[in-house]
């Protein structure tokens, strides 16, 4: 597991992150990413030096909005043909996916 304050990311760290976000990488790509990501983490780690005691987190900037609930009314959806028009693989009116279980 990665150490809390270690900003140099090892190849194994990067392999773990890549598996979390499902991006395939060769050993060469992992090595390059390890150097680039270490630089980037070093850049942003600066925030940790700022005193934020008694400061709440800000998740969004939409201050003036009290509710995000819309009225519970249905409206016409996109047609099946429109929704499937960009499908890389299709079977009838369904998206075709590859084998999930071996």
């Amino acid at each position, binding site marked *: 597991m990665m150490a809390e304050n270690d900003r140099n990311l090892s190849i194994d760290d990067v392999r773990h992150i890549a598996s979390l976000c499902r991006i395939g990488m060769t050993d060469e790509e992992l090595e390059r*990413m390890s150097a680039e990501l270490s630089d980037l983490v070093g850049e942003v780690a600066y925030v940790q030096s700022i005193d934020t005691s008694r400061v709440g987190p800000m998740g969004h900037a939409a201050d003036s909005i009290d509710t995000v609930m819309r009225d519970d009314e249905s409206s016409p959806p996109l047609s099946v043909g429109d929704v499937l028009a960009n499908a890389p693989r299709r079977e009838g009116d369904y998206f075709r996916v590859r*084998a999930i279980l071996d």
Partner: protein
Amino acid sequence: MVDLASIHYMSVREMSDALAMREVSSVELTQAHLDRISAIDGTVGAYLAVAGDEAIAQARAADERLTSGTLTPLLGVPMQLKDNMSTRGIATTCASRMLEGYIPAYDATVARLLANAGTVLLGKGNMDEFAMGSSTENSAFKPSRNPWDTERVPGGSSGGPAAAVAAGEAAFALGSDTGGSIRQPAAFCGIVGMKPTYGLVSRYGLVAFASSLDQIGPMTRTVEDCALVLGAIAGHDPKDSTSIPGALPDYTAGLDAGVEGLRIGVVREYFGEGIDPDVAKTAQDAIATLEGLGARISEVSLPHSRSALAVYYIIAPSECSANLARYDGVKYGYSDPDSEGIWAALEETRRHGFGPEVKRRIMLGTYALSAGYYNAYYIKAQQVRTLIRREFTEAFEHVDVLVTPSSPTPAFGLGEKTEDPLAMHASDLCSVPANIAGIPSLSVPCGLVDGMPVGLQLLGPHLSEQTLLRVAYAYEQATGWHSLHPAI
């Protein structure tokens, strides 16, 4: 009569007036723009797709509406949309292999509003892939070039829209701005660009990058055009849950009210370290002009805002890693053809579909959100975000508008920063704080450094667009930088 040979540098207002007076038809205007695109876009590279036949059809419909006398300010005016705004039936790629050939089944709200207003969509603008970048060199298809010097970048990520408007390849364009992607390219290309208050313009149909920061806005050659376009796209949209409800002002009203007595704060942190001295000098000259027009100038310090870049490069990648999880090669977009099994297909699809900068940001965001790091990075960044917003709120108790340069440097050379992501990120230094705080901000041309345009950035409190436009208009009319155009 209108001279069709030079029509491409008329303002939206001038085109609109000429159309209303029947001095020119929308078909003639549209064809003149399509000819301009044919003549120079091989060099500029502002367009990923040109929809010529559809544009002429829309222009014909606009001419019919003009004949029937139902005039709206943008009726018949040809424009470009950045390629991350969904357009039904017209490819929307985000300049990514991942969405190459993707044809949306619906229009973004802004596309629908502009279509209803009778504008003519010329085509889709080049950009950094998924709007991640500051030079448009991250486009998977081609770089765009700065019309003022084609060996330099137009900025980014809305580099295509900025270059198109600056080179007269569109009367106006819409860009999107997550950390400066409207304002920095507007500054680099010598045009006006506005990032409105978060929530003022609907994000429905804008391909999501960082949802708490993304905002669509106008890119135009004049301040008045910016007000006209903002008026056409702003407003509540039930399809965007962060869209602000309530009535809107007429953004063109009071443009010429001047700046007498207006309190303008000069942000000390953006005139020293990290800022090109010639850029700082140009912005200071602009501030002196505003003072001469009657504004009351004072110096303001925003120390926390200098943390905004680090906050941005935690929050934006975190949100991007969640938003871009949808690209799985199943419902739409690129799908690796050779992989067996769903997990291998997913990893290979994302490996080949995304470019290097997009991968870096997804990886950085995944790291910042992962177990053991979430509090140290993501929550910490959100806390600093609170401090930055608080600092702006306090500053606006004493001044009406804040000013900084729009970007630390003028446009840099093609290839100059592509191998150094940190140097590229620094180009967003001045623009990022507005997105972090959710406040409106506008870049207006304020002169040239070594023959390249430089922008003055104005920032105001939530929903102060009218004030920003009024200041920018007073400055523009006093200086006339908007009448300079590239030689291309």
